[in-house]
């Protein structure tokens, strides 16, 4: 599936909760249903950010394993 990504953020080495704060700010600048791509470290970042994104009403639509990090595509809710 091809994704029309509106914005990209590399959040590797950005720790919790700043990685989520930056994700939230980026999502605020998008319209409903537009897509944000973030790169998150493995571990705590992947455990917390996708869950917080869900709690804020957005939706993770794709996750790709990049080795020690993950590329996550989020649709603004």
């Amino acid at each position, binding site marked *: 599936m091809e994704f029309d990504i509106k914005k990209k953020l590399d959040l590797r080495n950005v720790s919790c909760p700043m990685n989520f704060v930056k994700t939230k700010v980026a999502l605020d600048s998008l319209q409903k249903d537009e897509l944000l791509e973030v790169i998150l470290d493995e571990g705590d970042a992947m*455990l917390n950010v996708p869950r917080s994104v869900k709690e804020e009403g957005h939706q993770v*639509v794709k*996750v790709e394993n990049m080795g020690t990090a993950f590329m996550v595509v989020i649709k603004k809710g």
Partner: protein
Amino acid sequence: MSEKPARELWGDLAALKKIGMVQQKQKEYFALRLRAVGGDLTSAQLRKIVEVADKYGRGELHLSTRQGIEIHNVHHTDIENARKELETAGVYMGACGPRVRIIVACPGNSTCRWGIIDTKTPAKELDSKYFREDTPHKFKLAVTGCPHNCAKATENDIGVMGAILPAWRGDACTDCGLCVSICPTNAIEKRPLPDGKSRYVLLEDKCINCSICTSSCPADSWVVEKRGYNLFIGGTMGKIPRLGTILKKLLDKPELDTLIERSLRYYQKNGRKKERFGHMLDRLGAAQVKQEILDGV
């Protein structure tokens, strides 16, 4: 008792240990071990503890490894008065020696986003049922809200852990792959279907029942099929560390209560002096003992 000189307390030392009054190496002085189930105290109780430490001790408090508070350096002539004053605020003594110790618990689902179960109620129940019961060696129980295991259920003689069994509901799944990426034990496998979509399969032998998939799934495609308690027996740290052995997974509350009761009775009957529950399991054969406890022999 409070009028007796220290040398006359020798005969009572075991009795004093039983109620959490532990003679220090400075023989005239005692450490008062207080009982706080799951580490919970009110601010009023804490103020009373501080007051007693100032009045009868040297204003010195020690946080124990089992979420309790100890008041150190209380002279033997003051221990009884100190105890009575603590009791006016609902603060009671702990335990030491070969018996059931203070029950440890994490905050559970009262405040923690990962908490699967209420930990405080079972911790209080275990406390009122078993606290201070005599056992062959010390006996420790812990209740932890989920498999993150913050209250270290696997390091206690009895460890209760909140647990869920996840199940995959394909109709809602968007095939994003998040679950495969975040499962801490790689217990979820993605299997391609002929129509280009995917099926996600739970490998139950690898699953640790933690709820990370069900909490995070963006489409709520992973759902909680069952919620219950995983029960570990025979964990200990100390001189010969041994992690707990799983007795049974995903128990309901009555089953949990029954198996804890049987485990403790089994240990009281079969354990040797100075032998922890886990070391008894290893001596008799863990598989055999597990079976006997499960069968109620």
